[in-house]
């Protein structure tokens, strides 16, 4: 991924910053500037998510995408944040211990890299949230 494209969303990637429509109450992560329900009549403000949520489905990736080859096998999940929206992220730890309904919380981790000498991307992954 190009550096500017990644740089533009650093805040969202590192801090789970999304948006919130004060008109209808919907939360957005990844952030959206236009509310899906109210469209141009929506009132969008930024919102920092608590980060806790629940796994609604997952897979264990054995054949990785470019830049993720070193990490296989890794668990990838769709996580529903407590405020409502869902996102796609990796689950750190033993992929075999991941299950639907698992409570998770965010951690700061390396996401991937552009080859051996390229840029390293950092962002949010998730870990089990149990006490």
């Amino acid at each position, binding site marked *: 991924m190009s550096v500017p494209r990644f740089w533009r969303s650093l805040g969202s990637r590192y801090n789970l910053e999304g948006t919130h429509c004060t008109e209808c109450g919907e939360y957005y992560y*990844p952030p959206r500037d236009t509310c899906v329900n109210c469209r141009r009549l929506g009132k969008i403000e930024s919102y920092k998510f608590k980060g806790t949520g629940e796994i609604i*489905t997952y897979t264990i*990736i*054995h054949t990785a*995408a470019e830049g993720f080859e070193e990490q296989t096998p890794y668990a*990838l999940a*769709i996580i529903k944040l407590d405020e409502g929206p*869902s996102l*796609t992220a990796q689950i750190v730890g033993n992929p075999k211990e991941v299950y*639907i309904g698992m409570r998770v919380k965010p951690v700061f981790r390396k996401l991937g890299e552009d080859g051996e000498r390229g840029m390293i991307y950092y962002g949010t992954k998730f870990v089990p949230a149990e006490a």
Partner: protein
Amino acid sequence: MRDVAIIGVKNTKYGELWNRSLRQLVVEAGIGAIEDAGVSGKDIDALYVGNMSGGRFIEQEHIGALIADYSGLSKNLHVPATRVEAACASGGLALRQGIMNVASGYGDIVVAAGAEKMTDICSSEASSALAAAADREWEGMAGATFPGLYAMIATLHMHKYGTTSEQLAEVAVKNHRNGAHNPIAQYKNQITVEQVLNSVMVADPLHIFDCSPITDGASALVLVPAEEAHKYTDTPIYIRATAQASDTIALHDRRDITTLDATVVAGKRAYEMAKMGPEDIDLVEVHDCFTIAELCAIEDLGFAEKGKGGIVTAEGETAIGGRIPVNTSGGLKACGHPVGATGIKQAVEIVTQLRGEAGGRQVDGAECGMTHNVGGSGATAAVHILSRDR
């Protein structure tokens, strides 16, 4: 709006065609289709071509112009040529653009084609190009692959409805059985459930044999106004419905992960346009980019109750000779999936079946068929209904 008919069709061979270029493939398909239709190049009013990623696969954009040129339609005839892109649904949308051109009265003879040349780059680069059909910033950057996204659909489908890996494997087994009777198919070998389950795991629970392959190939067809169709052929196939719908680009934003709402809505629009229901369809070509995708498709199009796709498949209802034959061509799994061509190939298969020319895979007495083409993990869906009756 005018009714529209298909009067000519052609597929190239589908497979790893290392000695053929994109332009060679699409010219073979295009000329084959106009020969089948009995029309001349100088009569063509417009050309549409579905192509997902010429830029990534062969470092060539401006595919419409390239194809018109090498089809002999540019230098003297200056036929307008338009590339259509909607990831793996590019072909289905090219067909729809062609239909709308003829229906509106702009053109009287229009070619709709699709082509992709995928084997000039290594498979990891091809996978990366295909992953661009999902949300690059918010799915790809998290480490998602295309099989990974469909695997997450499969995991939840299994959890909610009790679908099994064996039932998923049955989709691949059936589609290979059908492909064995299709001369253009990439794979003509039969496989067993055990072979699927023992094949390499790509993204749990999907094995490599749950996935459609990387393929070179092109397909084309010729569209005319329905009232003119009998001038060219005794067996025109009529377009009874063309429908399209969109949904969120990212899987995680869907209303229900196990339902492709774009398919549901496009299907509903198509049934309304044709004044038909699922019970009126004799066979369907669905977008089985992964085995789970075929189960979702038959459920979302109304051929199986939600969650019962696996059971219906395991009981043979979607086999040739069953209640609703699905993917007689071999589907994306066995016939191959040159992404931009697939939506056109599906229509070519239905036309071949409705003409009664499908040989060993013929569905007896087929009068009406459907095509279902998906882009990405379900952000675009195109559904067409074709019939022998106007």
